């Protein structure tokens, strides 16, 4: 059953693509055209960016040295594009990508003599799109699942019953629950992406909707310092693959065996 539904979603995605190919300007709106990637050519044809195993690289040095403590570009772009609400009360908080300390993100992998530039700076955290996602394993309705084609951990907010078992199971604290109606708390609603209702779980989707229309993830696009890299690990020629092969990188809580697909360069 779940498979059928997914097939349906895929098909509707394709339908959307066909629609988008016809009139990109109308579909994407004005403000968004600046973020269109090279794959989306000017002649109106949109090619989806496809990959077999998407991964994100966070270059902590670039992030902290060039971006600095107050840089919020990636967060702002992501949260604007995805209609992520702002709540005053931290109990209601929704976040897809956010800053935390190195200590908080890597408390089992640090020591007191680490480079202060790293330990005192920010660490961007988001859904790890695990290869073996615990959230998917526990969901009682298959409202969250790992997409076979490219490994993105997807979320069906229409099927989610709001039991929050996935929030409990996630070892990375990457999932948020809509404790209240989020809509009044969205500064400016982006009509290109669905808003959510109260009582469902949400998280980073690696910009699956942008990839489908030939655009890189919003956070990657927004980072002026190249601290976020996104690419296909199955492709030996991809930039992410080359960078990972060139040096040392770490992942959050690797000992759990979840195979997180967000890598950190320190």
């Amino acid at each position, binding site marked *: *059953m*779940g498979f059928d539904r997914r097939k349906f979603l895929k098909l509707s995605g394709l339908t959307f693509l066909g629609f988008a190919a016809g009139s990109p300007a109308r579909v994407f709106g004005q403000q968004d055209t600046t973020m269109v990637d090279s794959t989306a050519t000017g002649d109106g044809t949109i090619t989806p960016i496809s990959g077999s195993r998407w991964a994100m690289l966070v270059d902590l040095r670039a992030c902290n040295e060039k971006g600095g403590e107050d840089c919020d570009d990636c967060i702002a772009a992501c949260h604007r594009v995805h209609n992520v609400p702002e709540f005053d009360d*931290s*109990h*209601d*908080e*929704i*976040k897809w990508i956010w800053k*935390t300390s190195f*200590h*908080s*993100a890597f*408390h*089992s992998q640090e020591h007191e003599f680490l480079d202060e530039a790293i330990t005192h700076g920010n660490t961007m955290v988001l859904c790890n799109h695990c290869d073996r996602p*615990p959230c998917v*394993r*526990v*969901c*009682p*309705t*298959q*409202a969250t699942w790992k997409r076979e084609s490219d490994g993105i951990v997807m979320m069906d907010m229409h*099927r*989610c*019953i*709001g*039991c*929050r*078992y996935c*929030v*409990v*199971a*996630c*070892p*990375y*604290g990457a*999932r*948020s*629950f*809509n*404790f*209240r*109606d989020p809509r009044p708390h969205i500064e400016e609603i982006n009509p290109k992406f669905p808003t959510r209702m*109260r*009582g*469902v*779980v949400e998280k980073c989707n690696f910009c699956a909707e942008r990839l489908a229309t030939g655009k890189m993830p919003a956070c990657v696009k927004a980072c002026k310092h190249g601290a976020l890299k996104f690419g296909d690990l199955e492709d030996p020629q991809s930039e992410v693959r080359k960078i990972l092969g060139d040096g040392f990188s770490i992942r959050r*809580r690797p000992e*759990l*065996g*979840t195979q997180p697909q967000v890598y950190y360069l320190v």
Partner: protein
Amino acid sequence: MIEKALTGSKRYWGWIGFLMIFIIIGALFYIRQYNVGLGVTGLSRDVPWGFYIAQFTFLVGVAASAVMVVLPYYLHNYKAFGKITVLGEFVAISSVIMCMTFIFVDMGQPFRILNVFLHPTLNSLMFWDTVVLSGYLVLNILISYVTFSSERKGIAPPRWIKPFIILSIPWAVSIHTVTAFLYSGLEGRAFWLTAILAPRFLASAFAAGPALLIILVLIVRKVSKLEIEDEPIRKLGVIVAYAMAVNVFFVLMEVFTGVYSDIPEHVHHFEYLYLGLDGHSKLAPWMWVSNILAVFSLVLLIVPRFRNSLNILVMACVAVFISLWIDKGLGMVVTGFVPNPFGEVVEYWPTVPEFFITLSIYALGALILTVLYKVVISIREQVAGYH
């Protein structure tokens, strides 16, 4: 049969009315929660499960504990439990209904709950928990109805019910095992990631459930003309004593492994639970009350002179019940989230709406139990020729 619950004394109706007040207050709060969302609770993205799920967990244990009267009576033909077995099964029925209600009020989208059956997901423990709990409810309704109907007619229960009774025994164990698996199978939550969680749940259940049953049987003896001997009550006391001792032993094993190994991810949870962490210690005083009550109850339960006095036994049972309620209904679930995956302490405390919704579900359970017990009392009094 149920018509017996529709006639009763002023005291009976007064009690029903008293429970109804709490049910209505809770229902009003639930309407608010339904409209606003779970934001009316103290839950957050750091502590996504709290009071409701903890009560669910505790009550699954109470429900499972019916097996402690069913097993000796049906498997070992321990006749003394004859009169209280149906009372135990009714505790199971009302507890399972409370469990289901707690799950319902905890859902963000409660009216989508049937998606669990529409998209059955074998790898989700929550799916299995729904299956075993529903099955356990059906089994207990069936068994208690059939056996009590026979008792009323003064005949032996039909032979076909026996396989269902036998099945209900491992089934009772399964509901609490699966409920423990909800927690113990999560790689990211060190506090619950322990093979002893299910055995520990069962031990605490087999102490708290029979302790409650002892209190209930003594109340039934007081408010009705039913003659229930001391023997089954004392025997239940022995069961509570063993189960409580095993439970405390299991808890100490957990504490030892966590504290002596000194792995930060493990020990921090225990620190938070019993001492407080980073200046946050909302649960610690409660846990010490729980610990003291546990030791106090064990002294009363283990010394035969104390245990065999029903007045002291009932005190021990109250202590056991409160101690285990704090342990499971307050500490166990929340501590799994503190500290959170970032090593930060974000505390949780139930809000007023959450408290009253919880209270109303307990009132609902008490109402169901009262009605079921009323039927048993009226029919047994009738059979015995009191009216």
